């Protein structure tokens, strides 16, 4: 039995402990940061297949704040803590050369991790808002960490968009509180199914969902993402793209739609169409990019489109595909960003034109890039194929072949843009390829290699997680979403 508040206590405590002890000694923040994220990873793996409700302060559910652990939270916890451990491992060496002040970096990083852990565990609307804001503020600051002009500009854009989103959410929470007189998510859901549906609830629903969709960067709300994600330091880009848009955006949208407001055909259509639009739009813009990290950031929008399409289908198979794609995307997208980070670390540029023939000099990084590119574009043995395949299959089974067609088109365009990456950076040469510089390139250090290898191995073998679909890791998650509002109420409040 894992004590749920530990997921919040450990990162926050360490986030404030690190600046206190390590002002003088240089290696302390590295060690403490990595130990913390490692402990969190172990704890999150221990929550597998557990399900319970924790009452903070001993106050019972509708009155006190509750932390709810179920399949969906467990999946997100594992993703968050796995990727954050990889990112901290990577940043030990990466930060040494490019950035100063590791102390503040780890402090903000752990605040972000703690905020996200709190967001996925919280069973209370306002508490969810507070944790979301903690994670967002830390990520705003981390995007601007390098203090270059472009980073500040991206951070400001992210700040304005993110803050408008947060305020929409807060307004919607206030409306819901005024309507129902409760903040506990299960209690709100219980009251909402007992009163007639009116315009006020619809208004609150639209506000809260658009607020969280800004955080998850679906297409009408995507403007901040392609600026903010490339500007951050690479481990942070991996966190932002791999975890933050999922924990703060997708998770909350799914949770609110399925467990609070109830899933209706109208919502399903909206989710599917937004998903398809962002799937195609993101990948079309990505093909045009020459900046490596910016290309990856556009792909994040596109892949989030897949996730939303799969979940919007509403069938168990579609939900399985969407959530499995969410898991896979966090693996291969963070791997791609870490690769981009190590390439940038060695070459000092992100421009695809200036790279070339990296497979001779950086074999492991190149191989990891190859694996993750194949994963993201859905080539059979890798994990990306399985999840995309399930989404397409679910679309066809649900009687929507057009959606399946667009998903295939998006996948092909993804493959084309990644073959561009592989051609210009790794196996071929860019136009402004510089021979003298190329001679000096060498493979990055061991600590940067380790997360790349771990994530590549996971990318290859996580397709196996599908084995035993009915009783495997994903079945509790699907049960949470399929059970809908009533089951969630029973679980949290006790029937």
């Amino acid at each position: 039995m894992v004590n749920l508040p530990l997921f919040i206590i450990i990162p926050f405590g360490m986030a404030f402990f690190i600046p206190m002890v390590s002002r003088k000694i240089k290696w302390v923040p590295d060690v403490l940061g990595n130990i913390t994220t490692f402990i969190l990873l172990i704890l999150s793996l221990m929550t597998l297949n557990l399900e319970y409700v924790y009452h903070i302060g001993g106050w019972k559910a509708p009155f006190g704040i509750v932390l709810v652990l179920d399949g969906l939270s467990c999946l997100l916890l594992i993703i968050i803590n796995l990727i954050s451990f990889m990112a901290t491992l990577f940043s030990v060496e990466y930060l040494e050369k490019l950035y100063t002040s590791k102390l503040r970096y780890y402090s903000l990083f752990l605040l972000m991790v703690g905020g996200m852990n709190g967001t996925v565990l919280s069973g209370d609307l306002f508490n969810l808002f507070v944790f979301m804001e903690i994670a967002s503020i830390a990520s705003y600051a981390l995007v601007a960490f390098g203090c270059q002009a472009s980073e500040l500009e991206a951070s400001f854009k992210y700040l304005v968009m993110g803050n408008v989103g947060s305020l929409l959410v807060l307004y919607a929470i206030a409306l819901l509180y005024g309507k129902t007189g409760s903040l506990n998510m299960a209690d709100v859901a219980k009251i909402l199914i007992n009163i007639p549906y009116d315009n006020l609830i619809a208004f609150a629903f639209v506000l809260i969902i658009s607020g969280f969709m800004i955080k998850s960067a679906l297409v009408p709300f995507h403007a901040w993402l392609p600026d903010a994600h490339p500007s951050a330091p690479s481990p942070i880009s991996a966190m932002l793209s791999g975890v933050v848009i999922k924990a703060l955006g997708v998770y909350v949208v799914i949770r609110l739609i399925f467990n609070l407001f109830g899933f209706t055909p109208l919502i399903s259509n909206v989710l599917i169409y937004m998903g398809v639009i962002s799937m195609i739009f993101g990948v079309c813009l990505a093909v045009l990019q020459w900046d490596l990290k910016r290309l990856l950031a556009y792909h994040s929008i596109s892949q989030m489109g897949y996730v939303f399409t799969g979940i919007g289908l509403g069938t168990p198979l579609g939900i399985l595909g969407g959530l499995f794609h969410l898991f896979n995307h966090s693996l291969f997208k963070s791997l791609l960003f870490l690769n981009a980070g190590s390439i940038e670390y060695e070459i000092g540029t992100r421009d695809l034109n200036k790279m070339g023939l990296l497979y001779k000099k950086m074999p492991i990084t190149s191989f990891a890039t190859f694996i993750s590119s194949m994963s993201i574009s859905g080539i059979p043995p890798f994990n990306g194929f399985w999840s995309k395949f399930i989404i397409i299959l679910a679309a066809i089974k649900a009687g929507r072949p057009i959606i399946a067609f667009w998903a295939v088109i998006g996948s092909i365009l993804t493959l084309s843009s990644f073959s561009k990456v592989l051609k210009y950076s790794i196996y071929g040469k860019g136009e402004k390829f510089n021979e003298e510089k190329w001679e000096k390139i060498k493979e990055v250090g061991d600590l940067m290699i380790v997360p790349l290898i771990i994530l590549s191995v996971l990318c290859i073998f996580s397709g196996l997680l599908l084995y035993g679909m009915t009783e495997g890791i994903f079945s509790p998650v699907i049960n949470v979403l399929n059970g809908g509002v009533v089951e969630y109420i029973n679980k949290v409040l006790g029937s």
Partner: protein
Amino acid sequence: MNEEKGMSLIVKTVTRWLKGFIFLFGAYVVIFGHLSPGGGFPGGVVFAATFILITLAFGKEYVLRKIGKILASELDSLGAILFLLLATLGIYFTGIFFSNFIEKFHPTGNFKLFSAGIIPLCNISIGMKVGASLFMVFIILSVVRVVFEDGKGKLITTEKKDKK
């Protein structure tokens, strides 16, 4: 004390008189937060207001010499850690995070300091945290103006920028 820095003599004298009382009022708001309107955050803001008043009256060099950014940062972290520690002690004593454990062992009458269990202690740590961090925000915003960049990544100070 450097007489040229800061505001006029009147402001300095009034500040010197008032600062203790404002600080005392902050302490009052923090400590009686569980019985009357107030609590950690308003009290902390009053704490920070004291230091901001001193900064405005005497200039930032005076305050930085007396307190220093490092001390403020340590206090900031210490407040947060104390708050977490109080919450975590709940797990140790009763098995529940954030449980009000003091009352269970020391039942007291009304209007004693601990009549609300751990709430006054939490208020004190929040007050420390808020006061230190607001002061930090103010100091950092007043210091950050000094550094300019001349386009090539070099840092130059305000005076050089003015000469250009």
